[in-house]
């Protein structure tokens, strides 16, 4: 056999997504209209937060998580979502003239990508001279040193908007709560469901779970990225279909557990 047993269903799901990607991305390239997207309030809140930071003369803080630079793990997509948001916030800060402090994750291999993205954001707005390398902060390995560093930075340099999007473990509750206590405005989210509660409880505006990916696409304002949300939707309907088929087959007495393990 060419296909390993036990991966048939995986392959079918993958093919569904590939076909959907191909169809909708071509549609986007041709400039055809995509279905309308539901508003995510947290996106507007980012602009508001940047404005607030300028009014109060405080910096904007951006973080992808103490361990948010995972480029070669199963969480790589979340890193990319964080990078997409970094580009957006860098652009906003360049446009309105706010100071941006980026708290980098401990994975040193992600630093070139982070620096390039932040620089690119400033460049796109035509203000590359505003980019300050010393505002990329690095704290070493472990969520403790990272949260300590972030808190210390909040206390000394002030915190206007604190935007946190990416991979978060036990590092987010402290940094979010400290920003809140020091009078900052929190916006953020993570795709790791187990930590979403911290964002839901501590943020003024939250990206619930998957919304970080959708938000990354919406702020990019690029039709190709936006088409991704529609492609996901196809995946969700496929999941509904799979559930329905599974229930029907189980109801007529087939061993669905084995069937779905194919």
């Amino acid at each position, binding site marked *: 056999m060419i296909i390993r047993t036990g991966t048939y269903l995986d392959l079918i799901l993958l093919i569904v997504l590939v076909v959907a990607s191909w169809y909708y991305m071509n549609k986007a390239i041709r400039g055809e209209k995509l279905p309308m997207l539901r508003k995510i309030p947290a996106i507007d809140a980012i602009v508001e937060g940047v404005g607030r930071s300028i009014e109060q003369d405080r910096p904007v803080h951006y973080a992808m998580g103490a361990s948010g630079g995972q480029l070669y793990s199963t969480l790589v997509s979340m890193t990319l979502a964080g990078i997409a948001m970094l580009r957006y916030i860098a652009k906003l800060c360049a446009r309105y003239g706010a100071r941006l402090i980026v708290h980098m994750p401990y994975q040193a*291999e992600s630093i070139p990508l982070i620096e390039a993205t932040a620089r690119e954001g400033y460049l796109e707005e035509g203000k590359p001279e505003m980019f300050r390398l010393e505002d990329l902060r690095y704290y070493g390995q472990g969520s403790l040193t990272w949260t300590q560093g972030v808190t210390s930075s909040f206390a000394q340099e002030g915190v206007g908007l604190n935007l946190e999007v990416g991979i978060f473990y036990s590092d987010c509750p402290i940094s979010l709560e400290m920003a809140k206590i020091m009078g900052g405005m929190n916006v953020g989210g993570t795709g790791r469901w187990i930590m979403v509660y911290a964002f839901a409880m501590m943020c003024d505006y939250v990206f619930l779970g998957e919304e970080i990916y959708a938000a*990354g696409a919406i702020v990019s304002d690029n039709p190709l990225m936006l088409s991704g949300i529609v492609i996901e939707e196809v995946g969700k309907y496929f999941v509904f279909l799979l559930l329905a088929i599974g229930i029907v087959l189980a109801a007529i007495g087939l061993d669905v557990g084995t069937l779905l393990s194919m």
Partner: protein
Amino acid sequence: MSFARRELPTILLTACGVLMLLAFFTPFDAFQTVKGTLTTWTIVISATSTWLGFIYMGYAQYRMLQRNPTLAQKIYFITPFAFFLLFFFVGVSFPGDLSSPQYNWLFQNIYRQVGATIYAIMFFTLASAAYRTFTVASIEAIALLTGGVIYMLRQIPLFPYFAPWLVPLGEWILLVPNVGGGRGAVICAALAALVVGLRTLWGREITLVEV
């Protein structure tokens, strides 16, 4: 030039991704070998790049000192380098390197001890967040409050002693509504991650292409 700057890295990325997928979907040994090699490579690449963090940390600290050259700032500036050197030299100069008792002493008493304290701080931050948000303000907030308080009380020894029903109720909340909601969340996040992954393999993820 543009090809080497833009297209070639994308081609490299796609090739690596497709090879990994072939190793997953097909039973051929050749792909398994390639997968093993690539996995080793990623570890070597990331391990080689570790000094970057040190460089960026040093630069940020140096600029902070430049802007604010007080005595206190000078002490703050020297401290990380002093501790870096302490750990580094203890780590390389005793027999057994990182497993030497000397390094282990440093590791246990500074790194681990302090690492555990993070969780301690977390207790307090989660408590103050609950004070702020666990109100009966809306049906969603009530759901949050109920799930949180019941499952918390179930885990504190004293409360089940006086109210034994907390145990099955707490467990039910954890295993039924929590699993239901959490499962939907996991599926959606996974689909979104897959779409981002496919787009990147396709060379269409603008976040990476344009940089």
